């Protein structure tokens, strides 16, 4: 496999990168390359210019005076799993980063790249020199191989990390020709498989901000796969539980799910239901069922909707139980 030809720009500052992006050419940002290069090798895109973000000034994760965690979008996934600041302030993020792909890919792939990855579909992620030669909607054509009569693209958004940022109520700092702006993580996703990100062509995510959390909290992340490595999730679930001081009563739950729809989803109904309730086994079973039955599920990669619904229930329970167990450990340590 080979890459199509392109020219590479290596800006030294965000401003330079933004101006290059805005220069009107058919350009793409290059961060870790682990999502982009396979897509380019499969000829799913052939940008004339790549703008590498590797030469930008970088900084390690920081905790600011408001106790917010500020993370460089270019941080590698491996660095996320090793950062004391992240492990202290946003362990959920590290749990998810650890589950991405393989060690080599975690060494290369970045946080910004992971949350900006493209949507995936069996009919899409291959070259089309002799299979599925007629372009599908995502490739600019008129039909969808997955749902032949539909006029909608059903490719799924597979990031493991994005759901955890939903749980953490994170924001991103976006640089563009109009300057910097802070956007809630939820708002960068469109829930449109054709164009999963709402960012404008000149915009670059430069930082991820995780706000300070108030209560004692528990974290859980479940990723269900066949192979446990080199695999996107069948379904993934992030759970962040804020509790009362007793560590047993849920004050606020944030549950987010990935890989089964056009973008990450919050299980809002389930979250609301759990708020104020005891984190008992029974309640966790109930809330998992609620999450599974209330969320949008697109059959993907050969898995049926019924099966995915069951998976989502079981994995939600897994993530919730992990979060509760973590709380129990805190409680034990507290004694």
């Amino acid at each position, binding site marked *: *496999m*080979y*890459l*199509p*030809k*392109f*020219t*590479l720009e*290596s800006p030294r500052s965000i401003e330079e990168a933004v101006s290059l992006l805005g220069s009107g*050419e058919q350009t793409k940002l*290059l961060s870790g*390359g*682990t999502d982009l*290069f*396979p897509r380019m*090798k*499969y000829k799913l895109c052939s940008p*004339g*210019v*790549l703008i*590498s973000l*590797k030469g930008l000034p970088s900084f390690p994760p920081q905790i600011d005076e408001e106790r917010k965690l500020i993370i460089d979008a270019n941080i590698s996934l*491996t660095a996320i799993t090793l950062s004391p600041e992240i492990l202290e302030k946003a362990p959920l993020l590290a749990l998810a980063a650890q589950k991405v*792909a*393989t*060690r*080599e*890919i975690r*060494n*290369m792939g970045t946080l910004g790249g992971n949350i900006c990855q493209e949507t995936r579909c069996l009919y899409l992620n291959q070259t089309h020199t002799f299979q599925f030669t007629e372009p599908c909607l995502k490739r600019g054509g008129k039909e969808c191989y997955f749902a032949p009569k539909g006029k909608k693209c059903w490719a799924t958004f597979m990031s493991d990390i994005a759901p955890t940022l939903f749980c953490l109520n994170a924001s991103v700092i976006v640089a563009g020709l109009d300057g910097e702006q802070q956007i809630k993580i939820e708002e960068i996703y469109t829930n449109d498989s054709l164009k999963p990100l709402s960012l404008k062509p000149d915009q670059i995510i430069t930082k991820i901000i995780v706000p300070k959390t108030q209560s004692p909290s528990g974290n859980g992340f479940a990723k269900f796969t066949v192979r*446990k*490595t*080199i695999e996107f999730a069948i379904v993934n679930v992030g759970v962040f539980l804020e509790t009362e001081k007793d560590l047993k009563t849920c004050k606020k739950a944030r549950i987010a799910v990935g890989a089964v729809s056009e973008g990450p989803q919050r299980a809002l109904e389930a979250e609301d239901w759990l708020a104020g309730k005891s984190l008992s086994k029974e309640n966790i079973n109930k809330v998992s069922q609620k999450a599974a039955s209330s969320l949008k599920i697109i059959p993907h990669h050969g898995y049926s909707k019924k099966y995915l619904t069951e998976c989502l229930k079981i994995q939600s329970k897994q993530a919730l139980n992990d979060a509760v167990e973590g709380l129990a450990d805190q409680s034990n340590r507290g004694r």
Partner: protein
Amino acid sequence: MTTTQRKKIIGLTVNEETYELAVECQETLLDVLRNNLGLTGTKEGCGTGECGSCTVLLEGEPILACLMLAVECENKKIETIEGQSINGDLTPVQEAFLEKGAVQCGFCTPGMVLASTDLLKRNPDPSKEDIMESLGGHLCRCTGYNKIMEFVHHAAKLNRDNT
């Protein structure tokens, strides 16, 4: 864009030797190692980051050479399988690989050797789970991984015995 930007002169340090090369932007580190430098020990099993055969160490960290642009490796230290044994003396990792019968067809071997070398540098006494974490990206069809698992434990022991 001018055509001169398509090709860049870069310095690459591979196995402690420095090369000056004219490289096109789209050439991967794997392309350059194999085609320009003749270092064919680094293998292409898929080209899309799914098999681990092309693993090399970049600044000491295992990465996939098939998904890394050569021009972005300028002035960075690259280690490939060819740089592992000095003057024919095998490293403990290589020795353990042989002794435990972890080699069959050998196509995944260079990547496995480099990833294990990195693992043992970080963690002199890895558990089964640590080995899974580090070698999870290296497909091997011949061995069923049992002897791969054994060799890493054995290499760790050889390393400890040496120090």
